[in-house]
């Protein structure tokens, strides 16, 4: 099994930050909602609970990144693509090459910044049908795509 490119942690760091901001937004809404009731009086100053929440969330999200990196691995074997991921529940996925329908290489803005990309392998399956391998250097991902493409076949042969 191969590990992902270490700079994927930077990408995950950014998304962890944005996720934290999103959760903080929810927390702020909750605080405003609770404070709008006269009967409830929180002992803390305005905004303090939200700020505390923000820092704890940030710490939590960032502490997950090395763990996630450690548990994320993939392998391209003779006839299958293997992917292993998950911290609490680990999932090992196998996609036989013969089942691949089409393959995308995607790049978000942050990923482009660090020169990484995602390989998205689509199958005709229903549960977990697309297998996403993040954190691949763009060139490598494109090589991988061209390698896998020769095994892909038409949608009709389900």
């Amino acid at each position, binding site marked *: 099994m191969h590990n992902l490119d270490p700079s994927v942690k930077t990408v995950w760091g950014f998304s962890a930050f944005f996720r934290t901001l999103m959760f903080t937004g929810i927390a702020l809404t909750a605080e405003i909602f609770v404070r709008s009731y006269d009967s409830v009086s929180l002992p803390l100053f305005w905004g303090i609970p939200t700020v505390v929440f923000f820092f704890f969330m940030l710490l939590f999200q960032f502490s997950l990144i090395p763990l996630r990196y450690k548990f994320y691995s993939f392998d391209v074997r003779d006839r299958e693509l293997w992917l292993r991921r998950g911290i609490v529940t680990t999932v090992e996925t196998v996609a*036989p090459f013969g089942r691949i329908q089409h393959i995308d290489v995607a790049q978000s803005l942050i990923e482009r910044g660090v020169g990484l990309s995602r390989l998205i392998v689509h199958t005709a399956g*229903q549960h977990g*049908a697309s297998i996403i391998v993040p954190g691949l250097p763009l060139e490598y991902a494109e090589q991988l795509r061209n390698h896998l493409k020769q095994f892909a076949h038409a949608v009709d042969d389900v």
Partner: protein
Amino acid sequence: MNEILLGSERRLHPLTMMYRAVTIMPNILIALFVFNSFEGKVEAYMTIIAAVLILPSFLLNYYFYTYVFTERELVIKSGVFSKNIRTIPLEKIQNIDIHQNALQRLLHIASAKVETAGGATTEAMLEYISLHESERLRTYIRTYKTQQLHELENIQINEESSHTEILFSMSRRDVLISGTMSFSLVFFAVFGIFFQYIPFLSQRYQEKLYSGDWLLGYSPSEILIGIVIASVGATILSWISGILVTFLRFYGFSLQRSGMRILVERGLFSKWRSSLSLKKFQMASIRSNPIMRYYNLIRMDVFTAASGGDRKRSETAVPMAAPDVVQQIAQDVFCVNIPDTFQQVSPISRRRIFFRYCTLFLTISAVGYLAIEWYSAFLVFPSIALSYWLAGIKYRIRGYTVSNEAASVRSGLFVHTICIVPHNKIQTLHIKRSLWQRVYGLATVALDTAAYEFSGKAQIPDVAYEDAEEILKTILHRAHYEKNKWRVDIDNDNSIANI
């Protein structure tokens, strides 16, 4: 070629206009009713004028809607002011689905759904044509495909492939018997609708029901008796609705095979004729409830790949029959085998199920203790006993078999389900391990196919991790092998497959 169909432009069945007028009536009446309640006479008149305009529009639409089969395509022209011409190449048409509801059956009309290969949605709907005409369309498409095959491959078609054979059918008596063995919860929905649409009843009863005050006047034993009576009543109701639902659904059931397609015909008021391509077959499930098992009967459903916008892609192949009959059909038609023996999963599975049930029942007791009375705490003991008993049953049912052709998983508590997934239909395989499973060295193997099966029954839970890896390797090995074999088969009779 079929000379009767070819050449001339055809219109829909004239009774279409009448059908549309009848079905739009409730809307007009509702509109009238609503406007009247505003006491605005002007609006009421406007509705009437609209109605007067709507009815001629049916006539115009009918007059300007034509369809024609040419040598190579189906051309549908429509539109009164702006013209719309849609052309569908005949070789793209996969199937024509014919459907009739009760009113359409009275008028002897049917809707024909033209399904094509590449499209995400149904390509065209002919609403409505006579049943006779719809059958002719079907024959026409089939003849076209057969002829094309002759031209392309220049081979003699096996007579059997175009000929329809009945694999399984049910008499009225069979359907009734199968109804007496099934249960349905549809009466809940009927109650729901009943309460919703009778406002004066729902207002009074809802307030009473949701306040919970009516419970306080009764002693615990009375409440217990009430619960017993309610559950007996619910059982009887679900039994009666089971009979009704089964009778409506499976009346006149027949399973036919025509080449690489299977046809299912069923229904009392709403007549269904659905046809599934065997090429798209993904997996089968065998179900039985305790009563069915007592009389040694099983039911088989088949799942096919979700094609296009159609989500629902499962069909009952055999509503109820003896295992050997179902086994025969499964082997001959779907090339799967219903296994008799199953390998048990890890014994730790029993403990996990036990803890899960305990959590559920103990939460209920805790809620009872906090919300109702202190003596609800005594529910703890029967809860644990019940959990232990249920976990034992569930554990014994859990099992799997990996043969050379397919992986089968048995699961369930009272209703047993056997999921049979052929190796060559596997899309992706997953080994999942939750935190507790890792502690005990267990894993779950999930088998993913292109079938739209969301209940998650196609997975082997709680096997030892080494076994899970072994299962995965076996399936993968067979999948590669079968896949290649299967592709050769398909290449050989590629064109027959679509007829």
